[in-house]
């Protein structure tokens, strides 16, 4: 048992922290980035690449650095702290993760080095409106035709799908909408004929798109992984994304909690700092309890993100999200309340943390969904039994 980072991990964390502090320490800069065409800073994206962050989880043979879930956790925690807008989750964790785990050597070598050098951005176009949080609920079809495939369907809230160069599309090769088999993954150029994108900002200041696929033709080598391995791969990469989001949420929660405590020390009413009032002290203390519980579960998620047993891994991620979501709600709502009026303003940073945390709570399942997953698995004691 060991909670220490390796020397390499410490150096990595320090360099990410410096980058994010420098880029996002002044909240005004974030507004400037958000006004760029893609809703984030292209100059910063290049700096992510220069630091090696964009190739972090990829194998060295694929132009990466062979990092694991702990390295991703360090990056995402810094992203959460800075409320960074860059599409790290969409491109590196989701899109890059699907290619890394599902791609053949040719696909990996064609795509991953270009993600790593910052010249190619991906988005995972999978979710459909009727599916809610069910990964297997896919109505989009992939019909084999002329040695390739023809895709038809509609994808919703594709994170950073508005500006991605390459889409990874989940589509049904066979069966009915809610079958767990017959789902494939396809690499689709965002500019391909038949792809239309409706871009919009999300509530947390990030970007997304509705993507329609109408008679989109892709060649045979656009298929990622085996024809029927789609759902397993989607599950694995979604779990990695959940672990990454847990870390991002912890970064956001810890920054939000710290700024709230600072506010309690400086804001005066009735002639004294409001932090001298016990009602507010206890709320801030409970928020710290929630933060530490969340931090523990983000570590747990990072540890379990590469677990080979899919069911065990999936239950662990759901458990992590239950705690993260409970803590995020408690800290987010508490921070706004303790700030009072200033917390309600668009100008002030606290509200933006709250909004990001709230949106994280709706990605890849909400609290009720994840709690149901843990309950359906019979709880968390399964791993205890295995230990005994």
């Amino acid at each position, binding site marked *: 048992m060991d909670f220490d980072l390796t020397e390499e991990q410490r150096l990595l964390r320090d360099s990410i922290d410096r980058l994010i502090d420098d880029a996002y320490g002044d909240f005004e800069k974030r507004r400037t980035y958000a006004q760029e065409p893609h809703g984030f800073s292209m100059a910063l994206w290049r700096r992510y690449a220069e630091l090696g962050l964009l190739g972090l989880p990829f194998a060295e043979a694929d132009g990466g650095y062979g990092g694991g879930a702990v390295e991703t956790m360090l990056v995402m925690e810094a992203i959460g702290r800075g409320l960074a807008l860059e599409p790290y989750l969409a491109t590196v964790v989701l899109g890059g993760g699907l290619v890394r785990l599902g791609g053949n050597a040719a696909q990996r070598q064609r795509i991953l080095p270009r993600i790593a050098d910052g010249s190619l951005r991906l988005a995972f176009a999978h979710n459909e409106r009727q599916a809610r949080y069910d990964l297997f609920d896919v109505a989009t079809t992939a019909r084999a035709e002329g040695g390739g495939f023809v895709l038809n369907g509609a994808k919703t809230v594709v994170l950073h799908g508005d500006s991605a160069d390459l889409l990874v599309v989940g589509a049904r090769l066979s069966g009915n909408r809610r079958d767990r088999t017959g789902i494939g993954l396809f690499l689709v150029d965002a500019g391909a004929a038949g792809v239309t994108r409706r871009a919009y900002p999300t509530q947390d200041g990030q970007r997304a798109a509705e993507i329609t696929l109408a008679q989109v033709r892709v060649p045979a080598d656009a298929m990622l992984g085996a024809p029927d391995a789609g759902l397993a791969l989607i599950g694995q990469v979604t779990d990695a994304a959940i672990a990454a989001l847990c870390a991002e949420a912890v970064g956001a929660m810890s920054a939000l909690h710290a700024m709230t405590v600072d506010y309690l020390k400086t804001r005066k009413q009735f002639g004294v700092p409001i932090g001298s009032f016990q009602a507010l002290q206890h709320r801030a203390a409970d928020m710290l309890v929630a933060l530490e519980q969340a931090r523990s579960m983000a570590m747990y998620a990072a*540890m379990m993100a590469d677990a080979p047993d899919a069911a065990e891994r999936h239950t662990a991620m759901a458990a992590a999200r239950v*705690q993260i979501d409970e803590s995020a709600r408690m800290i987010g709502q508490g921070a706004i309340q303790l700030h009072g009026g200033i917390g309600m303003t668009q100008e002030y940073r606290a509200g933006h943390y709250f909004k990001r945390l709230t949106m994280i709570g709706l990605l890849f399942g909400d609290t009720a969904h994840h709690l149901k997953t843990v309950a359906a698995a019979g709880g968390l*004691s399964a791993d205890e039994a295995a230990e005994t």
Partner: protein
Amino acid sequence: MDLRFTPEEIAFRDEVRSFLRREIPADIRARLSEGRHLSKQDMVTCHRILHQRGWAVPHWPREWGGQDWSPVFHYILGEEIQRAAVPPPLAFNVSMVGPVIAQFGSEAQKRRFLPATANLDIWWCQGFSEPGSGSDLASLRTRAERDGDHYIVNGQKTWTTLAQYADWIFCLVRTNREAKKQEGISFLLFEMTSPGITVRPIVTIDGGREVNEVFFDNVRVPVENLVGQENRGWDYAKFLLGNERTGIARIGLTKERLARARQFARETPAGDGTVWDDPDFRRRLALIEVQLKALEITQMRVVAGARNREAGRPDPNSSILKIKGSELQQAATELLMEIAGPCALPAVDPDEPTNEPPIGPEWAMLTAPTYFNYRKVSIYGGSNEIQRNIIAKAFLGL
């Protein structure tokens, strides 16, 4: 970073696990697991079995029976004792007065008390709380006045756990009424058979008789039984309470209770099936388990951080462990009572001999008293509100 135990730690855990199941009498473990009260002899028996193995006072200095262990080993032993429903070594001896004597006592006191304390030849009780001094412990009024080479002690202690079994008491007394309240307190040791001591049980809402009032009427205590310096007792008490908080999350105990909850939920009929088949029940259990997993990792972070901390200085995170750990202990007892349902109502002592048929499963009739009893865990050891004050002041700087 690796949350898994090392092979060495796993080997130790397995050794502890099999030792406890093999050496501790099964009937004692069963009684504790069911929430029954243990006899003094049960507790002494288990304590001595552990002590013979070197596991009653592993955190003490080596010369007094301690082990040269990593914090993880200490953690593993504590968790396994709880999970096996083994009564832990008596906390008053091993976690409270023992470390204080080892740290602040004279050589003569160490020789006289530490071996007997470690082996539970002396059963200690804690004379801290008073009727007017709960969370504001430093306001205590029991006074000790010098009379030659004795102190004369007068006053009253309360909530004195298992005083009815105790041979000795370690007691906070006021030796200077002029000084600031924290600076006039001393730490005295004396025998419970001393003339002038009266012990009166307090029956708690579960019907239990764990706690007592203890009255002192001109009790004569030899001056040599003062620990450390006169009027420095508050420092020793803070040292003691810091030790008390680190083990207080009792995660292993809650795990053991939740394992029983699963078993009973599967055995208890409800609707067309059992309580276990109810998705709402499963979700409630899952929510407790998620929080417990988080707390377990938080506790391991504290344990792992102990290496880098100054000896004797508790981690401020121990307040987090106290708050959340007590809440989850209470949640588990509440869940068990709800599984029992109507069978939790009869106030019939299952240990009382009777020819009548049982009203429900024995475990079910103990769930309500256990639930009532466990309201104490968010009150003792520094109430959860006091813990929030500590977090706000010591940790958040408010």
